[in-house]
Each structure stands twice: as C-alpha cells, then as structure tokens.
C-alpha cells in the first residue's frame, strides 16, 4: 500500500513536471509579448522593458525555466497578467467557492447515480428500468451549457422558484456579509450563525448544482446498472443463490459490494467532468469560482493564470483518481 501510494505520488509529480514544462514552453513560444500583456494599455517601450526585467523575461529561456520550476516548487505560480496578483493567492480564494459546488454536485451525482443504477438493475426489464434508461441517456446527452440555460429559463423565468444567478442576494452582502473562515460559504455561515446568508446561499446553489450534477449522474447511473447486472450474472452470485442466500442480501450486499470498484473509478473520473463543467456553470450562473476565473483568464489571455488553473485541475484530477484507487484497493482484495 505504501509503495503504491509512493508510486502514485511520484507519478503525480512527474505528470505535473511534464505538464508545467509543456505549458511553460508553449506560452513562451506564443505570438504576443508577455511583458506587453502584463503592462497593458498604452505602454511605452521602456515600461515594457521594465516589466520584462520584473518578470524575468530578459533572461535566457533555460534560466527562466529553472526559475519557474523553482518557484513552482515553492507554490509560487507567478503573477496573473490580468489581476496583477499572485496566481496562487487568486486560486486559493476561488477554489473554495467552486469546491462547494463541485462537492455537492459530486455527492448528488454519486448517491443519485448509484441509487438510480441500483433501482434500474433491480427492476431490470421493467417499465421503471426503461424510464431510468431514457432519463440517463438524456442526462449524458444534454450539453451542460444548454441544460443550465434551460434550468434558468424554466425555474427562474417560468416558475420563478429559484434565483437566476449569483451566490448571495446583493442586499445580504451588505446586511449579512459572509465571514471568510473556511471559504466554504455554507460552512462559514453555519459557524457564524448567519442563517439568513446560509439559506440564501443554499437557495442560490440549487440550480448550478443541478446543472453540474446531471451529466455525472447519468454516467454513474448507467455504469452502476451495467456493473451490477454484470456482477449478478457472475458464477459466484449464482453459487451464493444456490446456497440459499436470500435475494435481497444477494443484490444489495454481494452485488453492490462487487460492483463498487468500477463505480468508484467512474466517480473519480466524474471529478474532472464536474470541474470542467464549472467553466460553463459558473459563467451562466455568475458564480465567482475557479471556472469563472479560468474563463476570464481565457478571455484576456492571462497565461500565468491559465497555467495555474490547468495545473490545479490536473492535480485535483490525479488526486481524485488516486483517492479512488486507494478506496478500490480497500474494498477489492483482487487489486494488488
């Protein structure tokens, strides 16, 4: 187990090094002067030169690269060309906002997906199974941005049940501002007893979380169903049935336990999907998280910020998969 962890960790580091190297040389080979981008506006030549020195762009590429990697190891991703603040600082501020959405979406997608998949498998061939099949087919086919717009159109414009966008009603930002403790607004508001803001944030989160949930939910449900059905056809289930184990135990204990491993894998993969979906969902729902930040960086070609976002998403993705691998190892003695 330790060896495995060590290997995965080493793999993560290697991946990050490769990634940051690629990103570094890509951005340096771009048209457009990074120093000029940094200064912006009607900068004079000498001012750009000053920025060039400030950013270390006057040194040879190799020295720049060494410097960049050194800084990266210290958690310094450079200064954002757009916000002119350290990218790390920006990320640390935005990550909790997105993670709040991502965590809820993952939770709902995983629990809902497994539940739907199990229900469909248990009632295999029935009308219910058919309905779930259609639903999940639709869920994996609907483009996230279209679904988000549909949610807005339906739940805001037609029904008026949920707010169109945002994280907190603006007046509450004034009357009941959220104190930043953990960065997770739901947790912070509970800690500080700020229930007005708590409910308001929760209310605002419904639609974006729903939008983020739908795709992974479909994927997880479909996989759970097929994995379960696959398991239920295995010899050991037949043998267990023949030895008088009740159908209920067979399905919900043996079946689920044996189908867990592929389901966990796909849950791990969903993290990436949800993270990417935040780009769209945060844009459409105006949620000030990492996706919104990334989008602004794309729009203004803020390479340092983009590099930071990519590295972060890469790290989260690898870490999520590693975590799932560890859990799989715990539940499945076959993986050695």
């Amino acid at each position, binding site marked *: 187990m330790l060896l495995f962890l060590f290997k995965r960790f080493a793999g993560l580091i290697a991946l990050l090094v490769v990634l940051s190297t690629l990103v570094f040389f890509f951005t340096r080979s771009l*048209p457009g*002067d990074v120093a000029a981008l940094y200064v912006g506006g009607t900068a004079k030549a000498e001012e750009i030169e000053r920025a060039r020195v400030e950013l270390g762009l006057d040194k040879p590429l190799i020295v720049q690269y060494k410097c960049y990697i050194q800084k990266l190891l210290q958690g310094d991703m450079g200064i954002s060309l757009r916000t002119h603040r350290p990218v790390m600082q920006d990320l640390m501020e935005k990550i909790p906002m997105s993670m709040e959405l991502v965590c809820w979406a993952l939770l709902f997608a995983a629990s809902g997906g497994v539940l739907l998949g199990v229900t469909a498998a248990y009632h295999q061939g029935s009308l219910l199974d058919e309905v779930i099949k259609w639903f999940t087919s639709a869920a994996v086919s609907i483009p996230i941005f279209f679904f988000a717009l549909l949610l807005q159109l339906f739940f805001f414009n037609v029904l008026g049940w949920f707010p169109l966008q945002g994280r907190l009603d603006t007046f*509450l930002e004034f009357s009941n501002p959220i104190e930043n403790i953990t960065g997770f607004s739901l947790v912070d508001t509970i800690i500080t007893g700020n229930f*007005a803001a708590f*409910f308001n944030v929760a*209310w605002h989160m419904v639609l974006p979380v729903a939008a983020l949930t739908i795709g992974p939910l479909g994927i997880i449900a479909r996989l759970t169903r097929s994995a379960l059905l696959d398991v239920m056809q295995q010899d050991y289930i037949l043998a267990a049935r023949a030895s008088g184990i009740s159908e209920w135990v067979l399905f919900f204990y043996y079946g689920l336990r044996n189908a867990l491993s592929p389901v966990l894998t796909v849950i791990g993969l969903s993290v990436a999907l949800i993270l990417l979906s935040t780009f769209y969902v945060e*844009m459409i729902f105006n949620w000030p998280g990492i996706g919104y930040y990334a989008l602004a960086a794309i729009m203004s070609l803020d390479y340092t910020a983009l590099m930071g976002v990519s590295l972060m998403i890469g790290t989260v993705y690898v870490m999520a998969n590693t975590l799932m691998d560890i859990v799989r190892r715990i539940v499945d003695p076959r993986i050695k």
Partner: protein
Amino acid sequence: MVHRLIKFMFFAFIPFLLAANVWAAEKNMVFASPYGVTTLDPSVSYSTELGYMANIYETLIRVNPPGSSDLFSYLLATGYSASADGLEYTFTLRKGVKFHDGTNFNAQAVKFSIERTKKLGKGAGFIWADLKEIQVIDDYTVKFVLNIPVPLPQIAASAYASYIMSPGVKDKDSAWFNKGNDAGTGPYMLKNYKDGESWMLAKFEQYWGGWDGKHVENILVKYTKDPLTQLQMLQADQAMLVGRIPLDSYPSVKKGKNTKVLYGPSYQNYMAFFNTTRPPLDNVKVRKALAHAIPYDDIITIGFNGMASQARGPVPQGQFGGTEDVIQHKYDLELAKKLLAEAGHKGGGFKLSLSYAAENAQEARFAPLIQSEFKKIGVEVEIKALAWNTQWSMAKEDPKKAQDIFLLLWWPTYSDPYETLFSLLHDEGKKPVWNLAYYRNAAYDDMIRKAYETIGSNPQKALQLYVDAQNLVQNDVPVAWVVDIVANWPMNKKLQGLVMNPAYPNVPFFYEMHLE
C-alpha cells in the same frame, strides 16, 4: 415532499426578501456593474475602473456635460488663471478638504499626486508629458508650468491620471491600492473590496460637499459580466443601476413598470482600421470603396438597438472638433463597386481578414454585417474573434502579418480632440501603439500639433485646423469611422439625478443621485 421543501424554502426567504426592500429603500443601492477593475492605483488607472475611481478620487476641475453654461465645474480647485502665453496656469485650491485617510488636502498634495503619476508613467500618465514643473505658491495655491501651450485645464480635468491622492501613500505601490485601499477625497470610500466579485462605495462622512440634501450614501457594486444577469437584477429590483443589458431587451426595459433607460451623449466611437501597408488596402480607392460598403444603418439597428449614429470622423459629434464640416462616407454599394472597378478590382475577388475583441458584444454583433455587405461587392471577409490583447498585439507587431481590418472601440482620455487625433493617426513608424492603420501623413501631424498649441490662445483657429486635419484623413481613408454611440444607463425608475457626462464615459456620479 419536494413541493413541501420548496414551499418551506419560499417562506424561509420571505423575511430576507423584505429586508432587501428595507435596505434598498434607504439611501443605499446596488449597482450591477460589468466594469472590471484592472488596477486601483489612481496614477495608473486607465481602464474600466474609471466608474469607481471618479467617485473615490477627485480632480481639480471637472468638464461639464455639453450644454452647460460653464465649461468646467470646480472640485478641488476653486478657480484658475492662465498666463497670456498659455505656459503658466495658477489654481487656487479648496480649503477644508480632507482625504479619506484623514490628512488635509493642500498644494503639496497636488504636487505630489501629479508628480507621482508623471513619474510612474503608466496608464494615461503621458498626458503630463508637456508639464515642466509644479510650483507650490502657498498651501492653497499651485502653479503649473508648461513646455508648450497645451490645454492644461482639459488635462487637469482628465478622466484618467489627474486624480489627487493623499501624500500618505508616498511609499505605497500599486499592489497596496489593489488590495482595496484608497486615498482620495471623493464622496465615497472603497470598502469590502473583493476583486472580481463585489465591493462597496461607502459614504465618506467628512466629504467637503457635505451630506445635506438627497444623496445616495452606500453603493454596493456587484461585478456582473453577463448582460442577461444584469437585466434580471434590474427587473427583479435587485439592482438600481446596471451597466449593460442584452441589446434586444432595451424596448422592454424602456416600457418596464419599474425600469427606464437614460440616454445621453458619449464621446465613444467604433472604427475599423485598414492595414494600409499591404495590397489591396494600400490602394486608397479600395479603402474608400470599403468605407462606402459598410452598412452603417444596419449596424446601428443590430449592434446598438438604434442608439448610435453614423460617425463622421475620428472626433465624435458633440465633442470639440466634431462638426458637420467633416466629410462623411455614406453607405452606397454602387459607388463602392465603381470605386473597386476603378482601383482595378472589378467585382472584388479578394479576401480580407477582420478581427474584433471577443469581449465586445457590440463588435461581435455587427462584424458579421460588414462581412455580409462586403460579400455583395465581391470581397470575402474572414472574421476572427480574438481576445482584445491578442488582436491588439497581432495588429501592432508586424504589419505584414497583421489583420487587414481591425475593429476598435475608442474614447478620449480628456476632452480635447488632440489626444484622439494624435494617438490614432500620427506617424508611429513600424511599431505603433494605436496607429494600427500604419497611416503616415506629415501634413496631418503638423496640423494637429499646431491646433493643439493654439487652442489655449485661439480656439476658433484650432477648431478649423482640427476639421481640416480630419478632412485630410477622410480623403485617405486609413480608417472607416463606423458609429458614434449614444451612452445609456438602464436603471430603476426610483433612481434620480444621474447626469451623463461624455468626458467621463460610463461614470455614474453617485453623489448627484438619490432614490425616491
């Protein structure tokens, strides 16, 4: 179950919804703003943060909106006088003014601020290029000495780079400001600054103008990029004022129960640079043909919902120098075809690339119209939506590789037309900043310089020179001037007192506003 849950949530929120109205009914308001902050350093600021800066900081004097009886209103200065040669300006300063950090405003502060801005040389710092020195005569008198007679009052009233800040920030850098600190004298202080999210413009108790009478006291700025979101906030009474709503929603907002749209003059205009270094656009007839093929009326309908007019020249109508004497190229496809034929391109048959800033919704809307119209005269256009920075560096770096047509939204830094005419069209050689047409005309350069230097002494002559210079350009057509826009603020009907001042684009002067 779900239904009950939603019901519960509804009831749970009613108190807070009411709270909203209570809060809004007082002297507080929400401004859903699409204008982001590049920097909060008043010396460096040269971008969309202007709307906040102009409420936090003040200049010595301010240009009045067109149609006012006086050219300037007096803020930190109470008056000024100029020497006969136009090389010395003496300002008397307002007494009893305090900075937000508690220090007193005086002549030293003026000297410090302008010198800091000039020394940093960032943003619009170039406007002080012809300033020789600032002399402190006494605590409340200050003298500006110039190298050449440029229109100093206009410069001192500039929307950028002319703010007065507390000498207490002597050893502070831009990063300090960007954390959300300020050091102005304006009616509002910056509070709760969360970059890219929200911040508060909070009443400054000791503002020299006082808080008697009707004023908005606290403004929560909610940074909101999405026009649709702003529309919704406006319609749901969540924001009193918004910056940008979907273009096609203007009619409904104008008719809305609680909403209205305020229109006003603007010095902003859209233009299309032709890359004159390369065939076929090195041929003036081709450029002229294209200028006649731009569907100005359609652009106004679709890109601006009717709220714009065809531009005449570089200087927008209404601004000094923007007169009807400037030649205008009208939409005329037949003429365009004829000109193309004369230039040796009968029926077109060439392909051009056009770029616009992907962030700019208006450009995104009207660029296809140009493409569609050019096609009718046989000119294919390949449209590239690029991030503003990319398209700009592409246009600047190498004229041989640059795009053929470059769309730009422009507004002047200060109200004299010299800055516009100089920046956009004076000969910058191979490495331009703004002259992206690579236009070279020595006569033009001389003419505007002369006008700039005579404006202090002989405005009438200067005006004539500016008009002549513009006509010179109009004959060469390095740039097609597309539209002068009409500024607008969609807002709640309760909000009163917003005065639009084209010299300060997109600035809501909150101090003049109140809620009914």
